[in-house]
């Protein structure tokens, strides 16, 4: 009876995982197809990977996606972290107001944020392109950094900064030596989130870029009318990179801690 139940449970979870992963594996599988078909596997080949690296439009898009993601992550992480720290010190009214407005881009449907920025850029007549895309990405990433970092700063014992200054550290030294190390996990989480959000973004980039500046999402979107296994090849590469980073991020701390014999949970938190 109990065994049967376990069996059902395992089956249900497996089916769910199959549903989530089958498309990804099918995609990876057919990226090695020698034919253009995405349903009949004719034989193994790397031709779609080769054509991917010959496709200048796609390579440009990869460059745009990666460089925008890196810049947006860097800027929004710095801006968000500084703001989060400052917020805990500011007056309650200011804090509440900023946190409320900060929520707008998070709560708003993406398409509304996208067109609001599009109207804004045309209103102040900045030409749509790389710059507008970068500004927009910083605008929607920073709120997430703040929501990740702010609670960490709030948890900090006020006395710690007092203690650091009492021991002779200037406000800047206190920031670097005491505050930042302790909110590190929040900053890392915020930065990671900002990076993936920026890297994956389609809707906002689609509305605020122009003049031939395209990120990966836009290229995939424009190609979605025709079947193109190069997209599969690109997706497979992205999938592998993400899996690699995720596994690294999840298991390396685990291994390090295990070696040291400390508490696993603490490092994973």
């Amino acid at each position: 009876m109990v065994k049967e139940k376990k069996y059902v449970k395992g089956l249900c979870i497996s089916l769910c995982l199959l549903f989530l992963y089958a498309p990804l594996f099918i995609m990876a599988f057919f990226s090695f197809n020698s034919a253009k078909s995405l349903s009949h596997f004719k034989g193994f080949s790397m031709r779609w990977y080769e054509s991917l690296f010959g496709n200048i439009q796609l390579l440009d898009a990869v460059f745009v996606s990666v460089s925008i993601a890196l810049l947006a992550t860097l800027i929004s992480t710095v801006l968000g972290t500084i703001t989060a720290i400052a917020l805990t010190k500011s007056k309650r009214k200011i804090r509440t107001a900023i946190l409320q407005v900060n929520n707008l881009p998070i709560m708003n449907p993406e398409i509304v944020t996208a067109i609001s920025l599009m109207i804004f850029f045309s209103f102040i007549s900045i030409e749509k392109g790389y710059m507008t895309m970068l500004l927009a990405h910083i605008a929607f990433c920073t709120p997430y950094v703040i929501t990740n970092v702010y609670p960490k700063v709030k948890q900090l014992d006020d006395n710690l900064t007092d203690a650091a200054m009492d021991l002779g550290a200037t406000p800047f030294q206190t920031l670097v030596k005491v505050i930042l190390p302790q909110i590190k996990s929040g900053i890392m989480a915020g930065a990671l989130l900002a990076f993936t959000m920026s890297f994956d973004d389609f809707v906002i980039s689609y509305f605020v870029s122009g003049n031939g500046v395209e990120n990966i999402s836009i290229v995939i979107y424009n190609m979605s009318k025709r079947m193109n296994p190069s997209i599969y090849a690109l997706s497979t590469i992205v999938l592998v990179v993400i899996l690699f980073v995720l596994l690294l991020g999840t298991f390396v701390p685990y291994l390090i801690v295990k070696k040291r014999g400390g508490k696993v949970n603490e490092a994973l938190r």
Partner: protein
Amino acid sequence: MKQYKKLVSPYCFWLFALTIIPMMLIAFYAFTSKGTEITTFQFTLDNFFKFMDPIFLSVLMRSLVLGVLTTAICFLIGYPIAYMIAKCKENTQTILILLITIPTWINLLMRTYAWMSILSNNGIINNLLQSIGLGRVHMMYTDFAVVIGMVYNFLPFMILPIHTSLTNMDKSLTEASMDLGASRIQTFFKVTFRLSLSGVLTGITMVFLPAISAFVIPKMLGGGQYSLIGNFIEQQFITVGNWHFGSAVSLVLAVIVIVLMALIYRVEKRTNVSNEDEEGGNKRYGKRKKIRKGSMH
């Protein structure tokens, strides 16, 4: 630590320029009609009267129906799965939750693109159906394809918060319930489900809201003519070029979404003695994306 107080100002300025002004511009466009220069725009409510147009109303209805359908399917699959995962051993749970989370890290367009070839007339499903002697079924560019795509993309966002609320629950509560004579099924409905409601509500928010404003998934799996409210807005801005009407629709969409969130938040507060803090609301709204990192930290 007051020394850091002044550092708020750059972001204040930033928020004002890139969040408040853009939103005000949407409102401005929504309440005006076209002039030759922006200074000659006329105040009007016409854009909102256009909502009575049957074409627009059908778009709105369709968005709502598909949103509700997607949310219902995600809930019906997601709750049992979350419940079953919560009953696993702790290590198994960590791995399973990581597995549920990973797909959300992959570009939504890539994930949706994969479904295009699976569902297409010459796709894997149709080839399979044909090889076992059943005929081909037309699936691409239908409501079915759009709902599948949305369920596929949003399902993890239903499972993860429900799982969290189930595992955060004090085990002794179900034990107490059974001790007091409630059967397993009674315990589930009277205690477990009640206490997981906050997770359910978060899940519903995180599925329903992106579903009604979805734009890419219907476009890719529903085809060019397919129109949900998100596509309708795009058309107004890109193809039709009527920014005023497009803004009015966006404004209404934003208001609907924000009001719904506020409502759900209030319901959640009432149903659950949750330990959310001062800025608890914000925390929850941030979860949609935050949850991706759930398994990592």
